[in-house]
């Protein structure tokens, strides 16, 4: 069985940053991803990033993926694509499955950057074909250039819901409405304003009650909700649409961390069960690190910063103290703190603080 210094699970913004950082510091790195190309969810993000001090602001997600991939390919790191990490075994071993092969990989340090999976919500017929996660809609239209439908109901007005609604319109697909159960819009005002200017109704205090259709979505029933978020009687109305897009949050993909035996905590602010980790992104098991959405749902910019910290910390753990690594960590920590001080970083900041307290 092959042994590597550092195994990185996941080739999204967190994993790519972790692998590049560790490889540049001299560690022998293997990055594993189940997709045919690197970049994770960045490859479907056509909008420009903004806000943070991160030097990628003003750049589109797809272009950031290209930059990060180029940076990694310039190092000696090994990349295994179309390979799924299907299990964690003792001692310090991963099970890898590709199309026709199962193999094992032993590691000295592990960085789990497995990302997150799309949530669904309860409503009648929520399993009907045509009910898609927001990420799936982005994959269809932005990666494959395929129309998910002709008229879409968007559920959720967080940044993902707003951005994907705008992207649908860019692709020539109508957005019937955006419904949001809370009394106010969840995402950035700029995104909501773009939609409002295009005449898309953003219905706050509304939710979906049912999808209509026999073999595929042919409409939806939406209704008003009260302050307790329960549907209000006699407020049902039918909306014409052939696609229902759910942008109702993400859940960390933490299975490997459970298997490895990391201490796990339920932190709603971070999206579900997450592994306890310290400021160096190390979990309760020495040598196992986390970065990105799997350590708490946040955004691509914070995922890259966490990746750099985890990569530098793991390299230091293996190769000894290093001023370059310490510099990378200090800089990334400062940028993370700045992002989390903003109004949209508060939730994650609160979650990370709670997680630290739970583990104490």
């Amino acid at each position, binding site marked *: 069985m092959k042994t590597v210094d550092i195994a990185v699970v996941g080739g999204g913004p967190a994993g790519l940053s972790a692998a590049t950082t560790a490889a540049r510091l001299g560690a022998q790195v293997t990055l594993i991803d189940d997709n045919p190309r690197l970049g994770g969810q960045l490859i479907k993000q056509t909008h420009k990033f903004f806000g943070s001090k991160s030097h990628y602001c003003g750049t589109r997600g797809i272009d950031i993926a290209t930059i990060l991939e180029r940076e990694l390919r310039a190092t000696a790191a090994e990349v295994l694509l179309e390979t799924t990490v299907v299990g964690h075994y003792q001692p310090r071993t991963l099970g890898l499955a590709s199309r026709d092969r199962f193999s094992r990989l032993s590691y000295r340090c592990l960085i789990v950057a497995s990302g997150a*999976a799309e949530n669904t919500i309860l409503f*009648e017929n929520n*399993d*009907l074909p045509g009910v898609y996660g927001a990420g799936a809609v982005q994959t*269809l239209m932005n990666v494959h250039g*395929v129309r998910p439908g002709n008229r879409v109901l968007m559920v959720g007005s967080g940044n993902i819901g707003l951005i994907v609604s705008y992207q649908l319109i860019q692709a*020539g697909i109508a957005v019937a409405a955006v419904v949001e159960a809370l009394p106010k819009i969840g995402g950035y005002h700029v995104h909501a304003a773009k939609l409002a200017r295009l005449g898309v109704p953003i219905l706050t205090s509304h939710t979906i009650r049912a999808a*209509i259709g026999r*073999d*595929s979505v042919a409409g939806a029933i939406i209704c008003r909700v009260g302050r307790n978020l329960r549907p209000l009687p006699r407020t049902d109305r039918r909306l014409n649409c052939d696609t229902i897009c759910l942008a109702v949050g993400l859940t960390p993909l933490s299975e490997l961390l459970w298997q490895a035996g990391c201490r796990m905590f339920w932190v709603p602010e971070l999206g579900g069960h997450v592994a306890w980790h310290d400021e160096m992104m190390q979990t309760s098991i020495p040598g196992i690190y986390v970065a990105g959405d799997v350590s708490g749902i946040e955004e691509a910019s914070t995922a890259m910063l966490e990746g750099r910290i985890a990569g530098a910390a793991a390299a230091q753990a293996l190769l000894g103290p290093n001023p370059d690594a310490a510099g990378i960590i200090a800089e990334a920590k400062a940028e993370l703190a700045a992002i989390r001080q903003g109004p949209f970083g508060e939730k994650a900041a609160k979650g990370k603080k709670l997680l630290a307290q739970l583990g104490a």
Partner: protein
Amino acid sequence: MLKRTSKRPRASRHPLTANSGRITEHPILSFERGRELTFYFEGRPLKGYEGETIAAALVANGVRLFRYSEKLHRPRGFFCAVGKCSSCLMVVDGQPNTMVCMEPLREGVRVERQKGRGRLP
């Protein structure tokens, strides 16, 4: 009153075509499609492109219904498109439980709707 969908829907005789199509004009993206391929859905030849997944090629051809659930035989399509939710399991070249949202389209591949758990070849 909400109309419930039948628990045992008949397999639709006419695959859905109303929602089909590819994006031809886009303000930001240009789609570099690979070689055109022919594949078979329920025995019927369809066109797709190299480099896309089976799921994307099916949706582009207006096919949304990928399988029927095991107990209630409810129609299912794909949901997450990133190989996590298992909503898109189909029979591919006789192999059941293939996640078509991750499976690359190949020339001549035979794709069938899966009923329940499917049967191993």
